[in-house]
């Protein structure tokens, strides 16, 4: 359930804490450090190959560094010596031996997760154009942190007798990457760095096991997604509604007596009355099983909550999602009738009723009106529910945890950030001319 943003934030947090450690790479932390360094470099290489870190270049001349800092940044970073270490995969599940190891392992695991989430996201949801500046700033921040930690890695390699690897790392310190990373960081910070839109997952998600408040929020979101995206038989929808109604009743119990509990109970009644109308509808089409499973998970968690911790916020979370859930249920029913998937009883011969295709005219299922009414009434719940503070909380991206180029920023005060990281910087003469034109 970790998002790309959360994983990146954790990488930044781990590296920031390592930068404050007196001994960031102990002997025990050497392999975790090499694994983390490698997984961060792989992550940045993935983003660069997707065009999220500006242009690429093949020359590392001084003029290229000056006019095309993101290109030089990508080139020099890709030339860093790769020391993947041993057992990087096993380290994903290893117990840390000391504090420094635990921080490197945190960075390693989250960089692997961030890379996976980036690669498997819908390509169209990845930032493009000007929206890649925050991604570029994150990349600069992570690279700067790795560069600053490299001397400690080199020392640990020497202590371990791996002098050849240490020498290679020492050499790379003079490549100019540290300087160009600062330049990219300063340039990025010269303009808007608001968070890009979250990455979207392709396809319909699987149901999530609900074991806590985070799972409950995610489960409610996924239930709405399942209902919106996948067809259901009337029986499956009836079960979803029964579970949803029971969850709402339990939520009313958890939030305690008051206006919200009364409204939730009334809403549960509407859901129950609408659900029983589905007994008069049938289908022979295949039905997706994700929504019933997800609704069951949510209901089972709330039943346990009512027996145990009885946290009112669990009830609040269900109440908060109830309007979206019933709206999605109504949408599903309308859509399945629209597409001719459902049947209703043909009332022409009461002695021998038969199933005929439902529609929005003569064979309109009664449940549709009940669902429409329930969805309209549910919107009033929003006014009674407390706002979800956890949604407002924002994870801190690496660019805000790891300051890059603070010393350089003053000297580069005249830097004008190009529209996109891939653009070359204008020579100083042109920049002055542009500015005087706009004055």
């Amino acid at each position, binding site marked *: 359930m970790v998002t790309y943003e959360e994983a990146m934030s954790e990488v930044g947090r781990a590296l920031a804490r390592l930068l404050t450690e007196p001994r960031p790479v102990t002997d025990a932390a050497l392999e975790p450090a090499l694994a983390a360094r490698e997984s961060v470099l792989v992550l940045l290489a993935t983003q660069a190959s997707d065009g999220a870190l500006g242009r690429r270049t093949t020359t590392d001349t001084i003029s290229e560094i000056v006019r095309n800092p993101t290109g030089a940044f990508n080139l020099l970073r890709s030339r860093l010596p790769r020391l993947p270490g041993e057992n990087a995969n096993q380290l994903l599940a290893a117990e840390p031996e000391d504090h420094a190891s635990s921080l490197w392992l945190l960075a390693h695991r989250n960089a692997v997760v961030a890379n996976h989430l980036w690669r498997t996201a819908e390509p169209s949801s990845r930032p493009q154009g000007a929206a890649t500046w925050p991604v570029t700033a994150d990349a600069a921040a992570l690279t700067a942190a790795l560069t600053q930690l490299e001397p400690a890695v080199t020392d640990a390699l020497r202590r371990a007798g791996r002098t050849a690897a240490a020498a290679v790392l020492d050499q790379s310190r003079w490549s100019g990457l540290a300087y160009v990373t600062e330049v990219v960081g300063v340039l990025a910070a010269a303009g808007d760095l608001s968070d890009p839109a979250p990455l979207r997952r392709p396809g319909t998600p699987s149901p999530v096991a609900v074991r806590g408040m985070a799972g409950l929020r995610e489960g409610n979101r996924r239930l709405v997604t399942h209902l919106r995206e996948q067809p259901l*038989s*009337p029986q499956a929808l*009836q079960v979803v509604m029964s579970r949803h109604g*029971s969850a709402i*009743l339990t939520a009313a119990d958890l939030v305690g007596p008051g206006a919200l509990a009364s409204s939730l*109970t009334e809403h549960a009644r509407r859901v129950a*009355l609408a659900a*029983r109308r*589905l007994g008069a509808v049938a289908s022979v089409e295949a039905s997706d099983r994700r929504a019933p499973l997800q609704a069951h998970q949510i209901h089972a968690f709330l039943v346990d909550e009512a027996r145990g911790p009885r946290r009112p916020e669990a009830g609040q979370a269900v109440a908060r999602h109830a309007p979206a859930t019933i709206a999605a249920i109504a949408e599903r029913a309308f859509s399945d009738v629209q597409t001719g998937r459902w049947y209703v009883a043909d009332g022409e011969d009461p002695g021998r009723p038969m199933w005929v295709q439902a529609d929005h005219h003569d064979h309109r299922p009664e449940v549709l009106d009940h669902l429409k009414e329930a969805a309209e009434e549910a919107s009033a719940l929003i006014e009674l529910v407390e706002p979800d503070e956890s949604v407002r909380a924002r994870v801190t991206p690496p660019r805000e945890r790891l300051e890059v180029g603070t010393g350089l920023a003053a000297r580069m005060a005249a830097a004008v950030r190009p529209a996109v990281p891939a653009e070359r910087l204008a020579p100083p003469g042109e920049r002055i001319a542009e500015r005087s034109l706009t004055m």
Partner: protein
Amino acid sequence: MTETRPIPPAAAAALDALCAIRDDEPDVAALLRAGAAVATLRATRPLYPPTAEPARTLDAASAIARAQEALDLAVLEAVDAEEAVRFAAARAELNGDPVGAFPW
């Protein structure tokens, strides 16, 4: 024409009882359990034929008691494993022990 199969008498008795719960039943939880049980009983291929619109006059407690009794008999009289499992799952729904992964 959609193919249907006859409803076994004991299952029909359970369905009749559950569909006859009155709409103003004060026990909403019982209404919801009855709904899940009806969905489970009807989750079969070929479909059961549609049933006539019932008079909704029973209170939930007596309807559920009647349905439980009918389902106990239905499980015993089931002609195959699919029927027996479905009737038992519906019985569990009525008891408030919902089945997580029944193929509705």
